[in-house]
């Protein structure tokens, strides 16, 4: 297994930041997730926040950065054998209908791509969750096809409906709740990846993968009803700990 050169930095009296080399790739992400799992097994009582090339360790109390850093370095040097990471692939339905995809027409004209091609290109990849932040349950996804890269709108909208699926720059994602936003909206997903009514409010984790699949308006309506009645279950598949 590749070991990276990590930087350990104090982040105020109660937190410590660990940084990997500045790269967005699966190898770095796998290493972060494995390390997170090992830290969880070795140390109790911390909150761990993984993202792209970092892992932030937060305590409820003041910490001794030097001794925590040396503990963490020991953990990183140890072997990976005990750490089994469960990673999942989630299939998420999206309705790419102009009624929801309010920017579809403009997007299609500017990119010179017919609607069907946009849907094909958007539903083809397995996207990787590199970070969850911005809003509860908002996934930063990597893997958008270059053909679909498109700048954010010059003026953000004040209200984007819950479930909107958008493209902003090199990123794509789903707005888990109504919010302001500047992405180009191409569809809507009826599912809630973040739901406080569930015992585990957010099944998805950093390192999991997402595949979108197209549904029509009727299916969107049906799934919305099933979601509200708490009887819709997202399709998930187990992945191995390298995310394959």
């Amino acid at each position, binding site marked *: 297994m590749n070991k990276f050169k990590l930087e350990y930095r104090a982040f105020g009296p109660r937190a410590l930041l660990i940084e990997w080399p500045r790269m967005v790739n699966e190898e770095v992400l796998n290493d972060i997730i494995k390390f997170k799992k090992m830290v969880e097994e070795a140390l109790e009582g911390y909150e761990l926040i993984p993202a792209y090339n970092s892992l932030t360790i937060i305590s409820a109390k003041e910490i001794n950065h030097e001794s925590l850093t040396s503990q963490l370095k020991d953990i990183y040097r140890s072997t990976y054998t005990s750490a089994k990471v469960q990673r999942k692939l989630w299939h998420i339905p999206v309705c790419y209908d102009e009624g929801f995809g309010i920017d579809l027409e403009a997007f299609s004209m500017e990119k010179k791509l017919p609607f069907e091609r946009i849907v094909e290109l958007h539903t083809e990849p397995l996207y990787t969750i590199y970070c969850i*932040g911005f809003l509860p349950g908002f996934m930063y996804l990597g893997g958008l096809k270059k053909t679909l890269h498109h700048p954010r709108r010059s003026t953000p909208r004040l209200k984007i409906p819950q479930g909107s699926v958008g493209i902003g720059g090199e990123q794509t994602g789903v707005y888990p709740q109504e919010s302001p936003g500047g992405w180009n909206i191409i569809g809507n997903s009826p599912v809630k990846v973040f739901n406080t009514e569930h015992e585990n409010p957010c099944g998805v984790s950093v390192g999991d993968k997402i595949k979108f699949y197209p549904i029509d308006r009727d299916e969107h309506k049906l799934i919305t009803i099933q979601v509200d009645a708490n009887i819709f279950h997202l399709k998930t598949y187990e992945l191995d700990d390298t995310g394959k």
Partner: protein
Amino acid sequence: MIQVNKTGLYSTIQDLGRFHYRDKGVPVSGVMDAVSAKFANKLLGNDENDAVMEITMTGPELEFQVETLIALSGAMISPTLNGKEIYNDEVHRVKRGDVLEFGKLTSGIRCYLAVKGGFMTEEVLGSRSWYVSLTEFSHLEVGKTLDIKEFKEIVDLEHLPGADHNFKEKEITVFKGPEFHLLTEDQRKQVLSGIFNVAKENNRMACQLKQQLFPHKYSILTSATLPGTVQFTPSGKLIILMKDAQTTGGYPRILQLSEEGIALLAQKRTNDEILFSLQE
């Protein structure tokens, strides 16, 4: 129960925060000035995490429907009970039908109302802190009733010395943030020897400062932020993240406030002066 007759500018229920869901993008929330809120709870013999009402600048009108004990701490908003003046940092007995009102704001901006046993409002993901989209309410609404316990016992009210929390203090203790090293010598000087004014963009999510430092071109890959993180935007603005801030960000994190620093900043109003004192 407490019935809300008037809401005031912005009143919410908060405990010390919602932890262990930050990796799912859930902000911590919780009281902005933890020093005052903890003190109000301590006066009543409550747990420090018991939910209190955070009252911002102008107070609500609240009608008690049970007998209990209350305490106020933090900003001075000239509170009255049935029209009679009462004071912060003291325990008061309230009876069924009593009305708590507020008047002129004379110091700080956030006042904490604690009730014996804490507010028993809904708990979501291990916290009673209100946050839009997670909890049913995001701020007080007229006619709403808030669950509290009845407390009729006669108790010897222990007198505690006041919270050592001076809102006039300008100096805010800070620590180096993870990207402090990116600052040039000039930018460091600006940050650490400058006097800053609180901008009007100041709420539970973030407190911006009026002054701008030299612009820069650093960016980081999106990474965790904390309440009290000082973000440095490319245009040179300083944004201090507060309790409802998002859990990740892409601006360099140059400084980090302590919980006490956040508590002090939480009592500052637009134009108030602050300066950063770096603790190595």
